[in-house]
């Protein structure tokens, strides 16, 4: 036997206390996940209504022009990377960071990065141009955070410092499947918006003018897209963490099972040895 009984029992105790932590974290994330999903559902009507209205406008007014809708040659791209502040979420952070890195390497232009969450900031700050970093919002994003990010992105876009804005987030498909995704938010892809629109458009009145309304609507659309991505990412984060912690707890249970087996075996061996020593001692006294 390699290890002594005491060593094994210490090992078991250690793993058991780790398991307690992972189990607690699992339960915390499952509670947070439930809340995040509620927020996700609650944010949908807003996003969908804004999208519908933009579709109505673009569908009913032909040849409308807006600076935020204009495609230009891409020399510089802004990436908004949504990761988490804390780890222990399986591959959640590294997957999104890797996808972003791949996008950056594939594009020819230069890059600027806005990171949300410590994990992406740490990943990109050394070798890449991180212009802004948001901490402490990844778990519970507020609409005002999205407004703030959107403002930075739109200002840079309007100034011509960037020609494209992409948001990198993790889509929550199901408990076990979270997929890292890229979404281009600027310039707003007109074809993607208008394609879904079916049926004849109605004659809509705009006050003060179609352009004026669009001026107001497009930023709202971008804000709500960013907000949606933030919420989606926070939901994915909790989902990923819950799954990671669940499997950590399972693994710990498995290891404890194995260790208990070796522990019992070692204990039995010791008892057997002791008995045979006593028996042989008694035998010798005869």
């Amino acid at each position, binding site marked *: 036997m390699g290890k002594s009984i005491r060593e094994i029992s210490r090992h078991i105790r250690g793993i058991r206390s780790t398991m307690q932590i992972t189990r607690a974290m699992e339960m915390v994330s499952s509670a947070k996940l439930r809340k995040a999903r509620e*927020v996700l559902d*609650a*944010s949908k*009507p*807003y996003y969908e*209504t*804004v999208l519908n*209205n933009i579709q*109505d*406008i673009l569908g009913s007014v032909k040849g409308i022009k807006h600076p935020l809708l204009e495609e230009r040659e891409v020399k510089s791209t802004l990436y908004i990377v949504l990761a988490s502040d804390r780890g222990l979420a399986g591959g959640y952070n590294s997957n999104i960071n890797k996808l972003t890195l791949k996008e950056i390497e594939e594009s020819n232009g230069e890059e600027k990065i806005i990171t949300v969450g410590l994990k992406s900031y740490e990943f990109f700050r050394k070798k890449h141009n991180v212009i802004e970093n948001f901490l402490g919002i990844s778990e519970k994003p507020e*609409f005002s955070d*999205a*407004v703030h990010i959107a403002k930075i992105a739109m200002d840079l876009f309007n100034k011509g410092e960037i020609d494209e804005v992409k948001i990198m987030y993790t889509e929550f498909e199901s408990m076990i499947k979270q997929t890292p995704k890229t979404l281009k938010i600027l310039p707003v892809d007109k074809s993607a918006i208008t394609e879904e629109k079916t049926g004849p458009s*109605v*004659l*809509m*009145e*705009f*006050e*003060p003018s179609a352009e*004026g*309304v669009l001026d*107001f*609507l497009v930023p*709202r659309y971008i804000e*709500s897209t960013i*907000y949606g991505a933030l919420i989606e990412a926070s939901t994915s984060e909790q989902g990923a963490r819950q799954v990671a912690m669940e499997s950590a707890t399972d693994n710990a249970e498995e290891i404890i099972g194995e260790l208990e087996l070796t522990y019992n075996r070692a204990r039995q061996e010791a008892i057997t040895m002791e008995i045979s020593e006593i028996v042989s001692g008694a035998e010798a006294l005869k």
Partner: protein
Amino acid sequence: MLQLDIVTPDRKFYSGEVKMVVARGVEGDLAILENRAPITTPIKIGKVRFFEGETEKSAALTDGYLSVLDNKVTIITSAAEWPDEIDFERAEAAKKRAEERLKSKADGTDVARAELALKRAINRLSFRA
């Protein structure tokens, strides 16, 4: 009857059948009745009033926009509050803060932002009975 929906980023604030909606558009107040022609317009910080049967209800809105289509009125706003949800003390404090900021005109004061904050605070305070 009109179907009115007031939507904010974090919740569906109101959804129901109403007789008339009065809101403050960028070009002036507008009252919307049944069978209004489709319109979309941004709205200013202000209140929205509507009649649910005979009872009049009102809510404080920050900026947003309103659209009418097929007897459906949709108001999209970044924040909406019922009068009983408004924290008057907080609004009072916000008003004071914004006024001081505008008065002092210190360097780096975002005048536009302070003005908006002031407008929001005044709007909220206007609900105090």
